[in-house]
């Protein structure tokens, strides 16, 4: 254990703990932008600068490990001045369109500026304006808003293991971008959208959600993804009874907030007019496309009757049962019981095995 003093309070933490983590134990809040608890800290944004006694220069709390006897001050007048300066610098490069930004209300930059009391930049940095990229159906990329926190790059590399993104350019022109300038697809992106989930600003946003509701209008509904058996936790963003976008819900037991392309972007079926909501029974010849609506009772009776007939005329082994990972363990158990115990066949399989 290493003992140190933060803002006059002592704390003992395991070796290798960062100053930021140690401060959080004491409920001391240090502002951050590039830091993300699930990604490796790299100290890009410099908002978490703190003063360490005896050192001539401030250090970043997010990636400096504690040392025995360290005395840290997280909020001196000088440091607060610097933090303001950093936010002003970010704003000097940032488009001033918070009014219509998709991220407004959920933007870390807005929050930081608000908390630090920064009204706007004293200077506007001369920087070329970039086209907004819509090279795919899922993610809109407006790198004019990118604050170069590197979170998207890290999540793609560290979580998705994909390395489709990198920081490109030098100096004031530096932005996040794709390893292949042609676009996300060309860079090998699998459209998990996890980059979008961690982007603190409006640089990466959901295409489906564009213009369909502001942060404060959207109702957040916790749910579980129904595509596979992992059971990723989701938050559905709902307006007027319609799902507008989906984000991962940070459940450390399951998916830590990360999702795949289906769970995040494949929700249009929910409100699809083609969706079946009642059982249908075919009328006429196979392939004729004629169905009539039925009740569940009638439909299940029909299935049971037909199954029994097939079994009686051809034997049970012409039947096969395929179950779904979207069902619970108990439901899967029951289905194999039905196959083996009732129908008398061992032809049971499961989609998760395919």
């Amino acid at each position, binding site marked *: 254990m290493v003992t140190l003093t933060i803002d006059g309070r002592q704390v003992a933490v395991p070796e290798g703990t960062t100053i930021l983590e140690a401060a959080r134990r004491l409920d001391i809040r240090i502002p951050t932008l590039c830091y993300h608890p699930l990604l490796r800290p790299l100290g890009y944004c*410099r908002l978490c*600068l703190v003063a360490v006694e*005896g050192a001539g220069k401030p250090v970043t709390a997010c990636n400096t490990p504690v040392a025995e006897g360290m005395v840290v001050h997280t909020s001196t007048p000088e440091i607060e001045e610097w933090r303001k300066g950093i936010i002003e610098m970010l704003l000097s490069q940032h488009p001033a369109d918070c009014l219509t930004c998709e991220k407004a209300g959920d933007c870390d930059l807005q929050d930081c500026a608000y908390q630090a009391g920064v009204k706007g930049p004293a200077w506007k940095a001369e920087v070329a304006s970039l086209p907004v990229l819509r090279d795919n159906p899922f993610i809109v990329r407006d790198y004019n808003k990118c604050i170069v926190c590197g979170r998207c790059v890290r999540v793609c590399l560290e979580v998705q293991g994909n390395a489709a993104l990198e920081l490109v350019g*030098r100096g004031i022109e530096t932005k996040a971008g794709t390893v292949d300038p042609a676009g996300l697809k060309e860079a090998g992106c699998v459209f998990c959208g996890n980059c979008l989930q961690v982007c603190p600003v409006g640089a990466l946003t959901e295409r489906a959600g564009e213009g369909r509701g502001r942060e404060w209008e959207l109702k957040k509904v916790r749910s579980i993804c129904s595509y596979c058996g992992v059971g990723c936790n989701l938050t559905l963003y709902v307006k007027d009874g319609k799902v507008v976008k989906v984000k991962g819900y940070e459940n450390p037991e399951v998916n830590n907030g990360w999702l795949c392309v289906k769970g995040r972007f494949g929700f249009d079926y929910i409100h699809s007019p083609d969706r079946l909501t009642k059982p249908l029974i075919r009328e006429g010849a196979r392939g004729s496309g004629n169905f009539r609506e039925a009740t569940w009772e009638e439909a299940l009776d029909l299935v049971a009757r037909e199954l029994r007939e097939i079994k009686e005329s051809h034997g049970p082994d012409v039947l096969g049962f395929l179950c779904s990972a979207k069902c619970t363990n108990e439901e899967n158990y029951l289905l194999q019981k039905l196959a083996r115990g009732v129908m008398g066949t061992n032809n049971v399989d499961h989609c998760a095995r395919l």
Partner: protein
Amino acid sequence: MLSTWRSGSNAYKTSLPPLGGRPLRAFIGWGGIILKDAGVDLLAALKEYYRAVQRESCGRCVPCRVGTKLILQILEKLSEGDQSALRRQLKSIALLVQQGSKCELGQSAAKPALDFLDNFDRLASSAPGEGGPAEYKAVVAAPCMQRCPAHLDIPRYMECTQEVRFREGLDVIRESTALAGVLGRVCVHPCEDHCRRGLVDEPLAIRGIKRFLADYELGRGRRPRLDGARMNGRPPVAVIGAGPAGLSCAYQLARRGYKVTVYEALPVAGGMLAVGIPPYRLPRDILQGEIEAIKELGVDIQYNTRVGREISFKELLQSYRAVFIATGLHESARMGVEGETAGYEGFVPGVKYLRNLNLGLPVPRGKSIAVVGGGNVAMDCARSSVRLGFEEVYLLYRRSRAEMPANECEVRDAEAEGVKFYFQVNPVRIVAEDGKVKGVECVRMELGEPDASGRRRPVPVPGSEFFLSCEVLVPAIGQVADLSFLDGMEGLEVTKGGTLAVDPVTLATKVPGVFAGGDIVLGPRTVVEAVAQGNRAALSIDQYLTSGKVKAGPQDLVDAWLKEFGVFDAVEEVGLPSGWPRKEEKAAPVEERLQDFREVELGFDFDDGVAETARCLRCYRVGLMVF
């Protein structure tokens, strides 16, 4: 003359060396401003400086990415007309850049602007443009990188490792050397002596990270892969000797599209890497894998072909338009004691001992062995002997432990492995019976009067002779060259030390088209210096074959300038809190490692390797020369 540049708290730096003979009118950089000519338009030069900083800024942190751009914009405003409000804003932005930037590039880049403001009255009065319009040259330097003889881009491969871009990190290393896995193990890492983190707590494990990257590639089942142009019809070049110098020259020439043939006397390539350094420090599959990658670029190695025996030097000169001599030092220096030339069984010079061991040729065996010498070669002989099963391994050295030229860790490992040290002891006579070594007569040494050079040389203590019994005696007190293959070659000059004389920058000998480098030029030195000279020779040969002339290039001039000016400041106050210890590489426990010649050091695992690089201060500094 005006200077704001200080080293630590010392006096202002005023000397401004010329660049390749061309005088500088001013220099703006990480330490401030040195103004020699008051006619320099300082505001214009400062703007140029911050343009250079913006070009180098990696853009990761806000103060440098945005702040240095704002500094530039304010300087532009200032040149339209002075306003004190502008100066106040400039000051607060520059201070934030200095205090808040992530790495040394941004932190140090604020200094010129701050110094300009602090000395505004004196500087603003300088008469702009009087000395005519200025010419500028921007330079980027990092202390570790400048200290590395091969100038590896260390901060960049540190950053690549930190950001888990390992492939790119290896590519950065491979710009300068094909031997990442080799240097990552056996380099003497002079860079670490000039690591600024060392001024705070401990230097970065610069060598260890190189190994980490090379090992990671192998660990993922890949083979070392080098990029380079395939042969493109450029004239063929001959290299004599497949040691690190010869291989590096061949590598860099092959990348430029030359067809290179390497003539190697031994059945293996690698020079001292293959037949000197023992496998427990450098496993042979690592070395051979990297040599294979060089061969895949089209380099042809002719094994068992000693120049001077299988083929004459004259023939090479006739068949090739350029030749690089990198034959190293493969003879042992004589101790000058009685019995040395008698051909006793059990007497074998160190270089030969290791060579035979590595080539699977017979070496004398027995229960006890005495190695003479205090350098790394002596340590290698002693530690190899422990592994061969000698029960008693003695090491005789004529000075004290503190003066041993061997690396401290080598000495420590030798001790841990059971080598017995005799300090301040020198052999005087080899004692033999029936033509077999029985032991060695030694004398104790003490420090005598200072000699002409002021160094106190060890002198024998009269009457202190004693007898040390041993069956094998291995002198390892130095290596010398065998230049007999050059017999009859006119024009090639040999130095007093028995090495080849060359131009220190271009490595050209007096014979046009013939270049030399590595130990054969430097004397017994290091792998990385051999690599550096091999690289430089490739550049010279390329110059020679494309233009017929060989001369110092722009980078040579900048390197020489930076060396004279100084990029590392040993008394600098870095200003960071200390107490972030360096990660230690894993090592095999002594009992295990002595079973055979298995590798002793095991490198970093993933977490430690990546974590170590977080300590790097990324000490790139931008400077602007004003002519």
